[in-house]
C-alpha cells in the first residue's frame, strides 16, 4: 500500500468515526479538542486500524497526544507497517 492509499483509507475511516467529512481538510486539528473524538471513539479508531491495516496498537501503547490529529494517526500506522 502506498502512502496515498493509506491516507485515503485513514480518512475514510475517520470520516465514519468522527461523522464529519471535514476531517479530510483539517488534518492537524486536535480531534479531541474539536469534540470529534472521545475516549470511547479513540478505542474505535484503534479497533478500526487493526481491522483495516492489520496493525495492532494497544490502547496502552499510545497516549492521547500521540494520536489526536489525522496526520498523527497516519504516522502511528506508518511506523508500524
Amino acid at each position: 500500500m502506498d502512502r496515498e492509499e493509506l491516507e485515503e483509507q485513514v480518512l475514510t475511516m475517520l470520516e465514519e468515526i468522527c461523522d464529519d467529512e471535514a476531517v479530510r481538510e483539517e488534518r492537524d486539528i486536535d480531534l479531541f479538542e474539536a469534540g470529534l473524538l472521545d475516549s470511547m471513539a479513540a478505542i474505535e479508531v484503534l479497533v478500526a486500524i487493526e481491522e483495516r491495516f492489520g496493525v495492532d496498537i494497544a490502547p496502552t501503547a499510545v497516549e492521547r497526544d500521540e494520536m489526536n490529529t489525522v496526520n498523527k494517526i497516519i504516522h502511528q500506522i506508518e511506523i508500524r507497517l
Partner: protein
Amino acid sequence: MRFIDLVATHAAATPAAAAQRTSDGEEITYGELWERSGAIARHLASEVPASCARTAPVIVYGHKSPLMITGFLACMRAGRPYVPIDCHSVPADRAAGIAAQLPRPTVLATEDFPAAAAATSGTVLSREVLRTLIEAGGSVSANRAIAGEDTCYILFTSGSTGAPKGVEVTAACLDNFLAWDLTLGGIDKTGLVYLDQAPFSFDLSVFEIAGALASGGTLASLTHGTQQSMAGQLAALAASDIDVWVSTPSYADLMLSAPEFSSSLLTGVKLFLFCGETLANTTARRLHERFPGARILNTYGPTESTVAVTEIEITPEMAAAPAPLPVGRPRPGTRLRIVDGDGTALAAGAPGEIVIEGDTVARGYFGRSDLTAHSFSRVTWEDGTTVRAYRTGDEGYLDDEGLLHYHGRLDLQVKLNGFRIELGEIEEQLRRLPGIDAAALTAPMRDGRVNHLVAHIVFNGERLAGESDFRLGLRLKEELKASLPHYMIPKKIVFLDALPMTGNGKVDRRALAETRG
C-alpha cells in the same frame, strides 16, 4: 446509624487506616480526616447561627483530593448542606450559575475558584486559608451535625430551561440509602477499597464515598490527570487493590477495551456495582469472563431518590440470554409505581412512567418550589407511613416477578456515558450565542445507548473571512465550553436554513434525526 457517626467511630477505632488514596499519590487517614474536618467545621459553624445553618449551603470546589472529602465532612459536621462542584467537569460560567442560585454561599476552594463564580458567592476560603484553619485546629459540637430532615448535599443536574437545578438530599435520605448500600452483594463490607472514578458533582460518587467511609474502607480515587491515559489508568488500578468497583457501564466498557483489564490486574475485586445508565448484556458477559470470581450488580435510581433504589445480581446466565437486563427490585423502604399520563397506576407488564416513593426521595429542588411541585409529592402508605414520591420522567415496566425494566426517557433528557443531560439546556445555551436563531439537539443511539450529540442550528450571524461550516462549528463549540461541561458539547453541528416543523408547530425531531450534515 447516622453516616457521620459511623465515620467518627472509624476515626476513633482505626485512626491510621487510609480513608482515601488518590492516583496522584495523596493520602488521608481516618484520624486526619476527622481532625481536619473538625477544624474547618468549627469555622463553618461560626459563620451562621445553628438555626440558620440548614439553609446556608457551602460550595466545595475542586477535584479528587483529600481536602474535598474533608470539606464534605466539615459541612456535615457544621450542619450545613454542601454543594460539590468538580473543577474539571464544571466550567466557570456554570459554576457561577450554580452559585447565583444559592444564598451567597461560602466556598471551600480546594482549587482556584473562577472569578466569575466568586462574584456571585459569599466568602471564598482558598487552599491557604483552609490550611491555616486546619493548623489552628479545634472542633465542633456533635450536636451541630446534620440529622433527619436537614439537607446533607445539593447536587446540581442538567435542567431543561438552560440553568442547572439543585437536588436537595437530606441526611435521612443518605442514612437510609446507606443502610441498604452496605448490604449489597452479600459480602462483608468492613474496610474494603472502593473505586472512586466518577466526578464528585455526579451522584454516582456518593455510592463510593458513603459506602467506603461508613465501613472504614478506602477510596481509591482516579484523578482527571490519570484518566487521560489508558496506561496510566491501568497502572493506577493495578496499584489500588480495589475490592468494590463502582462506575457507569460506559467506563467499564472503556477499560474492557484494554486486554490487560482482568482479574490478573485487579486480583481482589469482589463486586462490580453499576448505576447511571443501561447495562448492556455484552458488558456483563465480558466482565464475567475476565473476572470469574466477581459478582455484578445492576442498579437504578435518579439523583432525586439518592443514588439508587433498585438492585439485581446479573448472573452469567442472564448476561448470556438475549433479553435486556432488568434493573431489579426496590430496596426496603422504596416502592415503585408505574403510571400513565394521568397518574393512574398500571398493571404488571404495562410500560409507563416510573414513580419512586420512599424514605430516600429527596426534599426537592433548591429554591425552585415550582419545579419541586411538578415532580414531587407526598403519599401515605396503608401502614400509615408518609413518604415523598418522585415522578422520574423515566419509562419502564414491572414484570410479573416485580423486577423493574428501564426503557428510557419520556422527555428530552438523555444519558451520555452516564452523564445526565437535558437537550433543552444545550439548546438554550446555543440560542444565547450571537448569530444563532434556532437550535435543536438530537442524540443518535448505537447498541441501545446514546452515542453522541448533534446540534442542528440556524445561523444568521457573521462568519470570519473564508470560515467553513466546520470551522464555524468549532468556534461555536469553543464558545459553548464557557457555559457547558465537556460532556454536553455536541460532537457535530449541522447548519440548516430552517428547522423542520411538525404539523402542530413543534420542532420535528424525527425529521432532524434523519438529516445528515
